[in-house]
């Protein structure tokens, strides 16, 4: 493949290596939130933090109005700044597959990786959790490495009601993700950051994936919720 490779850890197109990717077909996403909840269950993800989330936007003027959903998760970047910025290699990349993963027992909780991720894909685990005793370290989507390595799709893909999420090996020219990425126009989030995201969207409108104007007019976006969140999540 003629992909320009800058960093030595990139595995897209490297012979003999897998490069898993997710394609999210926004034409099929109905915003059902099944993915978001399935992911919570899979990992006992605590309240207030998300490995994946599905924001929406209402666009247009009455009566021509539409709702756009935009599932989000870690992009398992081929050149991930989070891996670069971790002082102790607690976040690292699995070469075969391209997963960006965490070593929980090593993480010191400096949050440098969070600051460096352009996608807000990382979060600090709170002190309390239902039944898993990994807490107070940074966590994120793992592309369900524990399932994928056992021949299963990720949990969010498994339950996706709209079959909007498709998962597979992009280095395998016969996979469905290869087919989609090679035959349809796809978009990635914030390509200008040079991270080489491996979550590809079909039908994402750049007008909606840019940082929005909602920032200047926060009252319009249920600001009360945000204020509540910031207040109670900090403590």
């Amino acid at each position: 493949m003629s992909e320009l490779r800058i960093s030595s850890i990139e595995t897209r197109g490297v012979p003999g290596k897998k490069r898993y990717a997710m394609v999210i077909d926004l034409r099929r996403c109905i915003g059902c939130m099944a993915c978001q909840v399935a992911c919570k269950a899979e990992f006992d993800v605590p309240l207030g933090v998300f490995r994946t989330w599905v924001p929406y936007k209402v666009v247009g003027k009455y009566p021509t109005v539409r709702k756009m959903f935009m599932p989000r998760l870690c992009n398992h970047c081929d050149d991930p700044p989070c891996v670069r910025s971790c002082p102790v290699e607690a976040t690292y990349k699995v070469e075969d597959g391209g997963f960006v993963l965490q070593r929980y027992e090593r993480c010191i909780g400096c949050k440098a990786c969070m600051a460096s991720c352009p996608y807000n894909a990382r979060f600090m685990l709170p002190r309390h959790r239902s039944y898993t005793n990994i807490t107070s370290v940074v966590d994120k989507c793992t592309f369900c490495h524990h399932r994928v390595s056992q021949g299963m799709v990720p949990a969010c893909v498994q339950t996706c009601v709209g079959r909007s999420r498709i998962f597979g090996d992009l280095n395998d020219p016969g996979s469905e993700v290869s087919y989609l990425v090679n035959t349809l126009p796809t978009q990635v989030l914030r390509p200008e950051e040079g991270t080489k995201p491996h979550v590809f969207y079909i039908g994402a409108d750049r007008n909606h994936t840019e940082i929005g104007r909602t920032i200047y007019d926060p009252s319009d976006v249920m600001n009360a919720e945000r204020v509540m969140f910031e207040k109670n999540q900090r403590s």
Partner: protein
Amino acid sequence: MGDYTVFHLMPWSGAYAIYFFTIGISAALFFFSTRSWFPTGQALVPIRTSAAYVSFALLAISGLLLIGDLSQPMRFLNIMNPAYLNFASPLAWGGLNLISFGIASVLYIKALKQNDEKNAKFFGVIGSLLALGLPVYTGFDLTVHQNRPVWNTPLMPVLFVAMSLVSGSAVAAMLAKGKEAALAKLRWHMLWEGGAVGVMLIALLGTTAYGGSGSELTFILMTSGSLGLIFVGLGILLGTAAPIAVLLTSFGRQHAGILAAAGLLLVGGMALRYSILIGGQIVQTYF
């Protein structure tokens, strides 16, 4: 993007700004103390000891702040574990720098106490280089995040060095306790370094205002938005422009004037660090 109940917090809270502040002062005071051993720094002899002690105290406080801010404070030693170390991370370098600076400080203070000029000079120079590294790495720590407006400019390390020196001279001026020569020297420092900070801020505002949607929004938030009062009001006007103006008047050559300017510069130094730290993070919480 959307109006939904999934929100994001800033990874680095305001507490980091206090750390930036204290570590910057610590570094500069060490530098001033060291300078006093050299001919051009004669004027600073009166603050040699106090600056060294305050520097060390602030270093200790900074270290505790930094460790306390980790969600796993007990694991701070991981940063020194060679098996874990990631040299691509400025934080890793920063950790090593901080520790070696601490060692250099101890050795320097020991020499200072024994009035051992040779060793004091030796460890002073080593320590000063390491001290210079502290604001440099702090700046790098921000710069490397290519996705962050305000932070992602080559200016950051230089700006942090300048801010370190300004805040350091302001504290040093307070330590100088009316020693005219020292004050004059420090006034000179405050003036030039304050000026340098001012110039860099103008450059920073320029790159932010013209840096694409995320940067432009950040510019709006930092100037007229929620951070406007802190960044422009306290940081630029009251904390940088005003003290420079005071220092340029005849009052600014007097003892009281210098101290007033020093006070303002400290307020400004804290406000600038805070708003630069926070400013670089606001917009992304909406993404």
